[in-house]
């Protein structure tokens, strides 16, 4: 369990000192939006509006918001299936996200991806990936693309504490260091992979990020609930990526409040409700941030309520939008499989591409 939070050790970091009040408020708004969106999605999931999995990010919002806040035009983000937070943090609308959960044509992935597969390449957001650690070589590839085209940018590739034990992640680490690629692996360590505590899944020295030592990769570990700390440590890594084209592994401690997915019937068995309650009470990223802004005099309680109400309304409206949106037509099942077919190029017209009856 983390120690009681000190007043933000990293508030004086360069990248934080220069923050305008409006920016700080924006972080709060983003975190609240994520939480309210997810609460709404849970509600409508339980009402039978969605299928499949729903992995909620509640409790971890500061990481997506803090890291995304540093991203410029040439910085890119890719993550696993617990992707709603990152999607909203990069600027995707609640409407397109909620509609995706409903499987609607107006969803960000036209109802084809679902909860685990949100995408917005126009916002440098490359998904949303369901196979544990499967996104880690892709994140490396984004960095490869940047370096190949001599663009000064970084690829922020998120993964969970359980994902560090997949071989593809290690292969990626070796390549990242060997080829000096500007990728930042960000381990969101919420202490559990499904029902397995970190100590039952991973052998290590120091911490999970410390596995970087095997490859001589720079690494750091920090408190994930403190936006100041997330930003300060991520900024260092981004500088390393931008200026030296070097990879970094970051690890942020955090906590997911909900079960692994909505279908996690064991959510209250493998860890005690007290563990979560204690965290919520003392470390909740939204509370912590809200309290600092109150202390700093950047907002008052009323401002917060407004932000919160606006987020709730937005979430509710997104559900209405999703509800009222049409499902894709059955013929859409075979769209978006091949670029060349979709665009009816010469290549797309040659030969038979689909083989069902």
């Amino acid at each position, binding site marked *: 369990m983390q120690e009681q939070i000190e007043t933000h050790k990293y508030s004086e970091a360069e990248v934080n000192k220069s923050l305008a009040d409006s920016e700080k408020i924006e972080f709060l708004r983003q975190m609240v939006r994520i939480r309210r969106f997810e609460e709404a999605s849970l509600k409508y999931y339980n009402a039978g509006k969605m299928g499949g999995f729903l992995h909620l990010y509640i409790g971890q919002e500061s990481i997506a918001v803090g890291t995304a806040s540093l991203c410029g035009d040439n910085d890119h983000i890719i993550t696993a299936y617990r992707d709603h937070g990152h999607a909203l943090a990069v600027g995707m609308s609640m409407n397109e996200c909620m509609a995706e959960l409903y499987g609607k044509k107006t969803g960000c992935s036209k109802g084809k991806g679902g909860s685990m597969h949100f995408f917005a390449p126009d916002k440098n957001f490359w998904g949303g990936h369901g196979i544990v650690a*499967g996104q880690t070589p892709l994140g490396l590839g984004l960095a490869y693309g940047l370096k190949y085209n001599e663009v000064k940018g970084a690829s922020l590739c998120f993964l969970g504490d359980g994902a560090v034990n997949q071989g593809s992640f290690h292969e990626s680490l070796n390549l990242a260091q060997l080829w000096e690629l500007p990728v930042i692996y960000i381990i969101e360590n919420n202490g559990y992979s499904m029902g397995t505590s970190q100590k039952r899944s991973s052998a290590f020295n120091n911490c999970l990020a410390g596995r970087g030592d095997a490859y001589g990769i720079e690494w750091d570990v920090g408190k994930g609930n403190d936006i100041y700390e997330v930003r300060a440590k991520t900024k260092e890594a981004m500088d390393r990526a931008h200026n030296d084209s070097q990879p970094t592994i970051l690890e942020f401690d955090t906590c997911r409040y909900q079960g692994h997915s909505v279908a996690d019937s064991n959510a209250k068995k493998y860890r005690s409700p007290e563990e979560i309650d204690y965290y919520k009470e003392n470390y909740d990223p939204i509370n912590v941030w809200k309290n600092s802004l109150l202390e700093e005099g950047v907002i008052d309680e009323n401002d917060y309520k407004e932000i919160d109400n606006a987020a709730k309304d937005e979430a509710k409206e997104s559900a209405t939008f999703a509800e009222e949106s049409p499902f894709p037509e059955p013929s859409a099942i075979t769209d978006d499989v091949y670029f060349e077919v979709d665009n009816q190029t010469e290549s797309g017209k040659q030969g038979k591409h689909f083989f069902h009856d």
Partner: protein
Amino acid sequence: MALTLYRQALNRALDEELANDEQVVIIGEEVAEYNGAYKVTNGLWKKWGDKRVVDTPISEAGFIGMGIGASMMGVRPVMELMFFSFAYVALDQMINNAACVRYMSGGLINCPIVIRGPANAGTSVGATHSHTPENLFANVPGLKVVTPATAHDAYGLMKSAVRDNDPVYVMENTLLYGDPAAASDLPDDEFTVPIGSAEVKRQGTDVSLIAHGRSVIVALEAAKQLDEEKGINAEVVDLRSIRPLDEETILKSVEKTNRAVLIDENKPFCGVSSQIAATIQEKAFDSLDSPVLRVTSIDAPAIYCPPLEKEQVPNVSRVVDMVQKLG
């Protein structure tokens, strides 16, 4: 009489085999303390303890390869893949090691390993979680693949798989785990279903519906509807085992009905039904009154959209329509 669900039947088979043979060990993600992502191993860790039921990190290549190595030494691991879709990160181990080591050693080594887990679409978990790789594994000499459709067969095939001295991949189905249509009235006494034997699940005269896995349940419903609404008397053949394959039962049915429609959740190109169609046309050519037709998954990655995914996988209305196309 209390029916046993598919999930419970698997659980009973595993429990009994743990009792029957000390070398049997269950290994996989969340199989122990969590009781299994889909509760197939429910209660087994509590009953059998840490040694016999083992939780793993998310390292499929590592732990499945480990299981294969242990099986070479005589341990009999039953590995769970939370989804068979995750086989793709462990494929090298599952093909190059499990399937080839006996051959490459000239028969000196064998791998009595079972790898089991759900392999199906239809639950809106998206393209990466909805693969049905029975065709892919059955392509590989050295492997055995079974796809039980009922609790009875799930129980009997799982027991055969654990006792078999070759690698057997048991492909289950999340939709069948709790489906009353797949539940069975199991006798109290132990029994097994032999690997490599198909079963005629419904007798008929007009057309053979040949299927495996959940498509068998679809075929049975379709047969009922065809009977009631169209006066067509369909026979339903459940392959049960994909490799080895009971060609005899397939051919006998087609020779009787002279028509076949294959129902197959695989993607069509080189799916299991491609193989069955190729076999039927080759070996029952003169019995066929019309071409063998197929109802497969619509040929795209599994779509998330729940209502559309129900159209994507074989369903009763697509089967009924296809049977009528036979003319």
